[in-house]
Each structure stands twice: as structure tokens, then as C-alpha cells.
């Protein structure tokens, strides 16, 4: 299906957030994921289903003061 990750279109075979994380090789720590404007805790990634055109934000640490 076609989804949107960090404002870029992405075609994925994943059907859950956990599968997407595996597909993108997200690290075990240091990242957070949101669908729309709602953060989804890692503990819920397995049961969170992806759907067509879903907007997903993935963040990590950056340098800053």
C-alpha cells in the first residue's frame, strides 16, 4: 500500500506499525512514531494497523540547545 512517512510517499508491504518499523530498520531505542498528531507507543506498534494514505511521523535525536 501507499503511505506517507515524514511527508514523503512510501510504498510498503507492511500491514502494521511493527512491520513498518522492521522494514525501515528503525533502531530499538531513540525513535518515536506518530500517526497524524498522535504518538503511538512502541508497545502498541504490533496491534496498530496501517491503512492507505496514512500519515506517519518518525523522529529521532538531533543536535540542539
Amino acid at each position: 500500500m501507499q503511505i506517507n512517512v515524514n511527508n514523503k510517499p512510501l510504498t510498503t508491504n507492511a500491514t502494521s506499525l511493527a512491520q513498518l518499523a522492521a522494514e525501515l530498520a528503525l533502531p530499538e531505542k531513540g525513535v518515536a512514531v506518530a500517526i497524524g498528531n498522535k504518538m503511538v507507543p512502541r508497545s502498541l506498534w504490533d496491534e496498530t494497523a496501517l491503512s492507505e494514505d496514512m500519515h506517519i511521523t518518525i523522529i529521532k535525536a538531533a543536535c540542539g540547545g
Partner: protein
Amino acid sequence: MNNKLIIAGREFNSRLFLGTGKFSNNDLMARAIEASGTEMVTVAMKRIELDDATDDLLTHITKNPAIQLLPNTSGVRNAEEAVFAAQMAREAFGTNWLKLEIHPDPRYLLPDSVETLKATEELVKLGFIVLPYCQADPTLCKHLEEAGAATVMPLAAPIGTNKGLRMKDFLQIIIEQATVPVVVDAGIGAPSHAAEAMEMGADCCLVNTAIAVAGDPVRMADAFRQAVIAGRMAYEAGLGAVGNTAEASSPLTAFLNS
């Protein structure tokens, strides 16, 4: 006196917080963090690039297990976005500690007082330890305290300007009135500025640009470490009074004439 800095029940051995922006590379940043002696280091967030999942920034920052990571909300424009960013930070970094910064204006990066207060109220209810970056406004700082902020972090001058304690008179009032630690944040451009803030009784200084853009950031971090220690020591020792007329420090008996 000679008290250690305590924020939200946690004791810190250093009164210098470090920001991690603007260093030319991560190794230099890590060495500056070490040289500064800091135990509180800020970190921002960014969207990952899908073709670059590598990230060793956190390992550079948290080499010393005593270091408390302080995620910031830089980039948010209002309280609602700040709460979202805070939740993302808590999830990503596994900490409730948060440097709340809401500055919608990119030219001066001045914090939005109304949104900062609103976000502080909300984030405290959500269990965050909130350290708000704020205007050097004594009344606002009292409101932030009442809302449950763990510290107040008034600016000395706009972020990254290196101008020093332009808000000195107001910082002094904030220091006098605060019942939570006062962290002087933003605008500190030289170790002498940090020492001055500490001599005034500030509990802590947050420094980023002045160290990161120095000719030798590691030596500058050490210079700030010493300045903060010296400033605090002077405050605890009690500075002499300032006078308008001369007070002799040598005996004035005219020995040549006696």
C-alpha cells in the same frame, strides 16, 4: 550554603548545562561535554531520513551515565504542538525531563510567554518535569512556578547572540523571588557572563553556542566549567558591597611624614 543543585529531587554535581547544537562534529561535541563537567545535556528532535537510519548521537551524549538527557521542544509554535513534541520525546528518549521552548518567531527566537505557560500547566499534569525557556519576566516566572515548573530558564539575551546578561536587572529580580532553581539560558557568550550570572545567585547556566562555535570548543567548555564554579563560589562566599567613594585597602597613615 555550599548546596548542590537539586532539580525535581535529582542532585547535580555541575551547575552548567550544555546544548548540543552547532558543533562541527559529534566527537568534538562529546569531548566538550566531558570537559564541561556537565550532567545535563539538551537534545533536539528531527524527522528521520528514510535512506539514513544511522544515529549515534545519543551514544556520544550519554557516555557519562551521570548525564541527564534534556530533550527540547524546539520547532514547535504553540502549546498544542509542544505537548505533542513532549510525548514524542518521552517515547524516544525514555525520560520525563523536558526543556520546553516555544518560539514561533524564527528571527529572534523569543519565547511565547502565553503558550509557554499554557503548555507548562498541561505538561506538568501529564507527568513531565518541565524546564521552561522563558522571557526574563519575573511575573511570568512566578506563574510558571505556580504551574509546577521544575525550574525557570529566563533568557539573558536572544538565543545564539553571545551578548551576555542584557536582562540583568530582571534576572536579579527573578533570582530574588524564585523558589525553584533559576537557570540562565540563552545569550551567554563568554565565561565572564556565566560567572556574573552565578555571582548574582543564579543556580545554573545553560550554554551552547558560545562553546560550540569557539575556536577550541573543548577548552572553552573547560573555561565555562571553571567560570561557573568560580561564580558560584563567589556568590556563596558573599561579595563585598559596591560603593561610590574610595575605601582604602592600605593604611593611610603617611609614613613618609612621620
